[in-house]
């Protein structure tokens, strides 16, 4: 039995050791800024930022660039509190946010209104889109289509895409509470691809053949019309910093704004901010 007690003691000591090690490892802080930087925020910007970070690091940068999601509001907050060296936003800043942050537009993105490919609707006006999303227009027959209820698909509150859509299309109208809410560009696309009577909105760069972007106010949603600002719903992708960027953060932002970085964004379907790239 004495032996049993001994084993027990070792067992408990081991348990305590494991717990302690966990605590110590868990509480150790991430390495100081300078060596590596973190980007956090908009899930619309995230995939592009990841590509840029990968390319930047492969170009022999010793520093590592981590990219995290979280959403535009979280990105703005992360930049304000310094939790991330660079915040990412896919909507314009509000005045109080503008006052405390440095912003660097890295590209522009159009928001496409998408329907199922089997839908023969050619185009909509901004007012019609507003009517559909606010629940005033509820049936495709009011738009010259079949007598079927419209399945309206929106994004969750706080999403940058939703924020830009609210600001540029809905204006003072509210998205109807009856609208379905999907929590990412991908789920919106999936839902519209699966439902012949659905309508949704997402980043132009993410439109693929399973869904169809309709004309808005008579303008086709393409990179060219987005660049010329003919297309009515174009939003900026922003990098945000709390102070004038230095070190790796500055180096990375410079790289993103260089023709090299801008070309990657163009290739991925965004409108570069550098007027010389892609013309």
């Amino acid at each position, binding site marked *: 039995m004495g032996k049993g007690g*001994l084993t027990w003691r070792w067992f408990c000591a081991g348990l305590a050791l494991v717990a302690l090690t966990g605590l110590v490892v868990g509480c150790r802080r991430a390495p100081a800024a300078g060596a590596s930087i973190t980007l956090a925020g908009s899930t619309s910007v995230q995939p592009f930022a990841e590509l840029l970070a990968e390319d930047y690091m492969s170009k022999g940068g010793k520093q590592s660039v981590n990219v995290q999601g979280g959403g535009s509001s979280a990105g703005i907050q992360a930049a304000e509190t310094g939790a991330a060296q660079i915040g990412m936003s896919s909507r314009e800043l509000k005045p109080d946010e503008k006052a405390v942050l440095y912003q660097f537009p890295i590209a522009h993105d159009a928001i496409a209104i998408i329907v199922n490919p089997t839908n023969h609707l050619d185009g909509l006006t901004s007012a019609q889109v507003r009517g559909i999303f606010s629940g005033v227009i509820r049936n495709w027959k009011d738009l010259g289509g079949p007598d079927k209820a419209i399945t309206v698909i929106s994004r969750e509150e706080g999403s940058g895409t939703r924020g830009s859509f609210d600001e540029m299309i809905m204006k003072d109208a509210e998205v109807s509470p009856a609208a379905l809410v999907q929590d990412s560009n991908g789920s919106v696309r999936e839902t519209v691809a699966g439902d012949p009577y659905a309508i949704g909105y997402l980043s132009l760069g993410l439109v693929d053949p399973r869904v169809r972007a309709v004309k808005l106010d008579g303008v086709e949603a393409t990179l060219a019309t987005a660049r010329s600002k003919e297309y009515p719903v174009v939003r900026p992708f922003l990098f945000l910093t709390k102070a004038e960027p230095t070190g790796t953060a500055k180096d990375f932002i410079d790289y993103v704004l260089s023709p090299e970085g801008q070309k990657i964004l163009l290739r991925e379907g965004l409108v570069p901010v550098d007027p010389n790239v892609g013309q």
Partner: protein
Amino acid sequence: MSEEGRVTREGHPKRGRRRAGLSERGVERVLTVVALSAIGVLGLITVFIFIGGLPAIAKTGLWAFVSGHKWAPGRGVFGIFPMIMGSLWVTIGALAIGVPLSLACAIFLAEVAPPKTARVIKPAIELLAGIPSVIYGFMGLVILVPLIRTHLGGPGFSVLASSVVLGIMILPTVISISYDAMKAVPEAYRDGSLALGATKWQTIVMVLLPAARSGILAAIILGMGRAIGETMAVIMVAGNATMVPGSLLDPVRTLTSNIALEMGYAAGTHRAALFGTGVILFVIIMLLSILASFTTTARGKAKVNPKP
């Protein structure tokens, strides 16, 4: 039997008492600390949720927060009534689908199935509990939602889809607990009933089920807790519209989905309002647990002194 019982009640097995040394007390203390730390974590979570949520509830007013029909964080309007109703609808739906299936299955396993069959089926059902909820959600999204959309109408993302998915998800919980409750009914009850000339089915309905009532109730309440707390699978098939559903085919948003959908973005009062949603959910689940332990103890006592 009585010898064993006495030893356990005294709290120290004989061999331990003989050697009641430092190590014995040391182990007891370590175990106490570990056990208390679990409760400590629960306490911390409770405090944290309430600290996070109360400012929003105070700002909106408890009644307005709970009974408000409109959820528009962008405009500073926080009413979670549609989500409370959503959780309620979906949970009732899940119970309506899951409980009859579970009870039938538990009765079959406990009373009807030959032991060999039961030995295969029971582990298989317990395996259901190990499937991650996102898989249930994905199956619902890919199979159930289009099925409902094409055959019943509406967008497919609906109370019905969520109820079916949740109804399947609560099966293992409800089945295994009610199975255990039925197995715990003394053999003498069955023998007595059969000896009096009752058929097997009469025995099950009139003797077995009433005798196992407390356990079955506990099973249902635990299943309800699982249904109300499930998040991932529901987000994928519910449609998440912030509206009180008018029919089974309408989209719905539950309390848990509300938190999970928006937490990544929320800041300030919006964030606090999500914690507030958590507070309400917490209170609902606490009430359920209290109800569960109350029914089990109350019925349990009644069973000790059955009416003549």
